[in-house]
């Protein structure tokens, strides 16, 4: 039995991560800026078209000083897309938004020092951040997370790297967020969000479907939109185009 859970077009809530270059300004700012100019002089356009985040953790400046700093960077074609570790008092609507939960990635290769001061882009080694094409990403072995206890109301299990397996039930008011598929050997009474990092082939499996909300790759359905025949059944759920499809497991 295959059911299209609902015909209405769902709103997409996609998650995606990008690699940004993080600059950590130091005081006195003029000195730091001079060093930055020196770096930029070695490679014209090094900062151009790159997403750049300003880490202001140990920077003892107020909002006005920060605004001046960002203006000076903008004048150098260094456009700041976000602020990391900013105090609330530093933020303002006209300043870049605050970013949180950044994860460390490999460092950027600075432009090589060359005697002439002009460096051709072609001679540079490939920047370390350029990973293999991402369409292979899910084909390689994925990490998985196995939980052998019931997931309780109010608990949120977030595993963006791969599949989540729960040997037990997921309570009403609990949620599982996985980059890959979600397998629940018990009743799913809470929320399950699979393929959240942009994986449309992720699926949700559960022994007993009583979910409050299910989502795959940003497409979601609430309990109200789900076929009532599926409730209480062992079910697998996947995405066909933009429709969430479910089938009982026999």
């Amino acid at each position, binding site marked *: 039995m295959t059911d299209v859970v609902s015909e209405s077009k769902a709103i997409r809530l996609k998650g995606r991560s990008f690699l940004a270059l993080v600059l950590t300004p130091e005081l006195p700012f003029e000195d730091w800026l001079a060093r930055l100019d020196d770096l930029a002089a070695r490679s014209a356009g090094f900062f151009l078209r790159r997403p750049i985040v300003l880490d202001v953790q140990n920077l003892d400046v107020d909002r006005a000083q920060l605004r001046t700093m960002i203006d000076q960077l903008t004048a150098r074609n260094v456009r700041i897309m976000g602020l990391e570790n900013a105090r609330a008092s530093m933020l303002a609507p006209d300043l870049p938004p605050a970013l949180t939960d950044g994860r460390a990635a490999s460092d950027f290769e600075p432009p090589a020092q060359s005697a002439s001061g002009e460096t051709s882009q072609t001679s540079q080694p490939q920047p370390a951040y350029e990973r293999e094409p991402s369409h292979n990403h899910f084909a390689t072995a994925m990490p998985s997370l196995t939980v052998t206890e*019931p997931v*309780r*109301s*109010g*608990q949120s299990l977030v595993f963006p790297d791969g599949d989540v397996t729960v040997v037990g039930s997921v*309570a*009403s*008011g*609990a949620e599982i967020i996985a980059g890959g598929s979600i397998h629940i050997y018990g*009743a799913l009474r809470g929320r399950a969000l699979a393929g959240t990092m942009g994986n449309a082939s992720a699926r949700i499996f559960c022994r007993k479907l009583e979910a409050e909300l299910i989502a795959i790759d940003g497409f979601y359905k609430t309990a109200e939109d789900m076929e009532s025949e599926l409730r209480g059944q062992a079910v697998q759920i996947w995405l066909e185009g933009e429709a969430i499809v479910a089938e009982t497991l026999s």
Partner: protein
Amino acid sequence: MGKVIVVTSGKGGVGKTTSSAALGAALAQNGDKVVVVDFDVGLRNLDLVMGAERRVVYDLVNVIQGEAKLAQALIRDKRLETLYLLPASQTRDKDNLTPEGVEKVITALRKAFDWVICDSPAGIERGATLAMRHADVAIVVTNPEVSSVRDSDRIIGLLDSKTLKAEQGERMEKHLLLTRFDPARAERGDMLKVEDVLEILSIPLLGIIPESMDVLRASNVGAPVTLADNKSAPAVAYFDAARRLKGETIPVTVPGDKRGFFGKIFGRKAA
């Protein structure tokens, strides 16, 4: 060293205070030394249920803030000489409970008593988290209805993460006490079934307490139900729960269930 028990639920009005008093009195009737601690600072009730409201001089907050000694705040029950109450303050609020202060009080009580029963306030804030913090055993009080069950599930999650035992990587021993069970409503299907609650919460069952006028009558006269009328159905259920808490294996009977009824008669004859 005594055992510290937290009686908790998340939701209010499910029977935490009634159960704390009833289990405390049941354990004390075996000769065990028991103290029941009211953590509901600002909304204290345990003194009323235990009939000690006119004898409160000092309270938990006084002890924590060093205004009174522990021995001055403890109230001995007039009917059972091994049963004590540590009342909460009615005039202060829960911010007066400090983690260090609570730890000191619990450590001292643990040395002097066989059982320290912490009656948790409703909610998941400071009062509730401090009440469960030092517990060895948790009794999760739940009514057979969906909101109570979901709140209990939330509390179980907190018991497994926010308590000292959980932080030390040990497992908190948890028991389910199903209270206000109404056989007539269960018959009509108006309530969650016992097996449904057990399936959702998946912790062992300590007992099922039937909904009964005896409970209300007992709290109105200021006596734990296990003292007011120890032959009443809720009292018998609490006595059984107390024996299970001490490690005895007694089959749980579902109130109103025919087989359970016979089982109860035989169970009592054998006892």
